[in-house]
């Protein structure tokens, strides 16, 4: 049963949290023993994980720059996690100082931490929200006061959708988000996949079942279908490191083995 939105969140530091585990992968110290124990176990099983997570974080950076280059300065970063380094608003502002970012996460500690980091930064907002209730996010006053939904918005669902099982209808949720946005808006997705290393992926998936956010790996085709009416932009859904790589970047052999896909979709003019 989903917890009703008016009920208080449960804070249990003895349970690993996806946001803090991710922070650990990236080399952060915003984590607790339970998070580290789980991350270390995962790394033992799958030593490339930190590199993969770094590649994912690097994709976020490239995707934001890409969106800014397409004229978007409004970002809705859902599943933003613990802002460690290379946060969306920093990347976006580097590209365009006018950029504004709303951070949304389900994890109350991640939200509290984000608020502490961002203070009263006028161009950012942080709210606790659940992707599975898109209406609540879109109608939140903090979203309304910072983002102009009459202009294009980039919705960032980076390393998030593999925490949304099919039962929670991710396609419908994305379609609902898309309906609320004007043409020219973009959808940024990166997603863990079982393509390539199914056994490893299955074990990894099992590991995450002890977190409040169990994992659902999806195939490339399934990930493509999540975009719905958003038109996939070049080069489509591809391995994360291959999505618009930085000029001069040498591909890491580790990230070549990376089992994750990324892509960016555009809400086109309805004819």
């Amino acid at each position, binding site marked *: 049963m989903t917890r009703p939105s008016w009920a*208080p969140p449960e804070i249990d530091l003895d349970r690993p949290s996806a946001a*803090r585990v991710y922070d650990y992968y990236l080399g952060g*110290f915003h984590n607790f023993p339970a998070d580290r124990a789980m991350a270390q176990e995962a790394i033992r099983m799958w030593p490339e994980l*930190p590199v993969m997570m770094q590649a994912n974080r*690097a994709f976020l950076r490239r995707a934001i720059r890409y969106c800014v280059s397409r004229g978007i300065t409004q970002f809705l970063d859902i599943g933003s996690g613990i802002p460690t380094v290379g946060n969306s608003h920093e990347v976006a502002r580097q590209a365009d100082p006018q950029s504004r970012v709303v951070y949304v996460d389900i994890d109350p500690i991640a939200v*509290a*931490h984000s608020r*502490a980091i961002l203070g009263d930064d006028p161009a950012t907002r942080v709210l606790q929200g659940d992707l599975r209730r898109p209406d609540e996010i879109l109608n939140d006053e903090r979203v309304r006061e910072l983002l102009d939904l009459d202009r294009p918005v980039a919705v960032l669902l980076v390393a998030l959708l593999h925490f949304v099982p099919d039962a929670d209808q991710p396609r419908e949720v994305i379609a609902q988000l898309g309906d609320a946005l004007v043409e020219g808006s973009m959808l940024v997705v990166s997603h863990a996949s079982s393509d390539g290393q199914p056994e490893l992926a299955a074990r990894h998936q099992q590991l995450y079942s002890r977190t409040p956010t169990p994992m659902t790996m999806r195939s490339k085709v399934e990930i493509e279908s999540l975009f719905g009416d958003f038109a996939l932009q070049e080069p489509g859904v591809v391995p994360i490191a291959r999505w618009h790589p930085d000029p001069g*970047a040498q591909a*890491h052999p580790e990230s070549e083995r990376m089992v994750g896909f990324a892509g960016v979709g555009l809400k086109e003019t309805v004819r």
Partner: protein
Amino acid sequence: MSISDEAIRAFAAEWARTIAGTSYVPLGLVELESTLTELTGELRCVLASDPFDPAPAARVGAALVDRHFTHPDSIACTVGLVSRSWGGVNDPDLRDRVAGLAGALAAGYAERLQERTFAEQDAIRRAAMIAQNEAERAARELQARFRAVFSGAAVGIGVGDVDGRILDVNPALQKMLGYTVEEMRRRNVGEFIHPADTADVWQLYQQLITGTIDTFRTAKRFVRQDGDTVWTQLAVSLIRDNRGRPEFQIAVMEDVTDLRRLQIRLEHQAHHDALTGLANRALFQQRLGELAATTDPTERIGLCLLDLDGFKAINDSVGHGVGDRVLVEIAARLGQTVDGDRQLVARLGGDEFVILVAGTSDAQDMVAVAEAALAAVARPVSVAGGVFNVTASAGLVERTAAGADPAELVRAADITLYWAKAEGKARWAIFDPERSLREVDQYTLAQLLPTALDRGEFRLHYQPLIALADGRFTGFEALLRWEHPRLGRLRPDRFIAAAEESGIIVPIGQWVLQESCRQARRWFEITGSRPCVSVNVALRQLSDGGLLDDVLRVLEAEQLTPDQLQLELTERAVIGSDHEPLAELQALAALGVGIAIDDFGTGYSNMTYLRRLPITALKLDQSFVSELRPDAADQTDAKIVRSILTLAHDLGLTVTAEGVETAAQAQALRELGCDQAQGVFFGAPVPADELGRTLRGPRS
């Protein structure tokens, strides 16, 4: 020593390549190289300082951490690169300097990493605390909200553990059951069992506290502290602990006692007579339906339908007010005569009552019930200063319950009641199915007629017509029979009046015409002779018109000549037909169709119609025939017949005698000069397939 800019760039490029994957740094490779080139420059300065001071290298170590190179591999690869690039040369001073530089670099890195670790741990702990506080505040608010709901709710709410210990109850529940919180806490949920509880309530409860189900709803009664009963709508929910084990139960209940009482009162009102308080027709029919629904072949039921004799006279003489009081008194007496469990007294309306008896063993049981009831009614009733002597009649029915049709049963009792009244009132009669069948009323028959026609329940029987002069077979009269599946064979006198009344006689008549003409044709096809077919026609067929058309169509269809058809009309029919039928009869006569007057001599004495109407034949009623004998002492009938024959022959009419049963009658008629005859002597009416055999039989 001096390191060229070229070497610096090469060092930085190699540094960037090796360090890049160690930690996440939000920089592209190009940006990373330029950052590292800067840091390499700083290291060059430290290396070249004079006097040599490695301390500033610590800043470069710290800068790596600041750039988020936080993984141990980051410093490891950096120190390794410094040693490999610069420490390998055979220069002790440089080796010392490189060692010092590496040491300071690592120390600076470690110090800043420690600071960063502390800071981030601090930050995340603070965030956790804030989140925790927030959650607790929300929980407190929620609890306060729940507390407000709990204490302010109009519904009763109780919390218990899974052993049934009651932990808390809200004020509404205390009020509902009349116990204080303390009193409730001393009790167990299991003590609230109520004798009227259905077994499934407690089964559901067991399933709930063992965690098989999470919630259930039911209607349940509770005994209040003061002994009264409370009706509730109850919903019980299970609360589980963190590991999903059943922990608490929450009961929410609504007091629906008033609603229930109202419901009971309305139900009572719907099922009871307002004046007498007895069951009403609806309840009686419901009970009767229930009893008749049994499949047990040994179950029997009885009805005693009672109607007060001449009660209208009381109402008329002393008014309805007093009449009603008499009814109330009689109703009360009837109520006292019955055994409440097996018998139900109901007032069906007016002065009509019924006693429904379950579990009778035979009709005698009903007789006892009826006699007790009639005796109770018959005792003088003193009301409003007057004494009234009332009697009642009763119709009794008793039978097996299984398969009984309630409506049929009531109808049977009704018929029987009518018999009791007809036999002199103040008595009972018991239903006799044979008698009932015999007396199936016209109304019932009229209702059955249309279906009878549809289902083909009508048959024609044919009675031969014989020429008296030579005994020749001249034709036959078609006679209608109704083969009712339950009532058996019915002769026209049972149903023709009803058929005429309802108009169904018209389609029936068409069928008779068609069927009998078809038979005449079949006769011709088999024997080669052309018999005359005589068909009875009702007034309604004439007045409703269309008979001429029907005749023309049938003659055409069956290829009969008009003189093969004779229509028989009663005197009553032709006398009542002054206008329109005349034209139609004349048209039929002009066509050559015979028109006969049936049962001649039994109707009107005014015979002017013989002149007025296009009649071709008379059928002499059998009452004139029965006493005819050539050697009879009394020749009155013979004289009448002779006169009629003279009259008829003078008018050019032929005469057929009906009901000839003996050879003597036939002989007498022949001697009187009668033209034709029919009757059992010549052949009884028989179905078509037996007609041939009848005619081939011996005849004088």
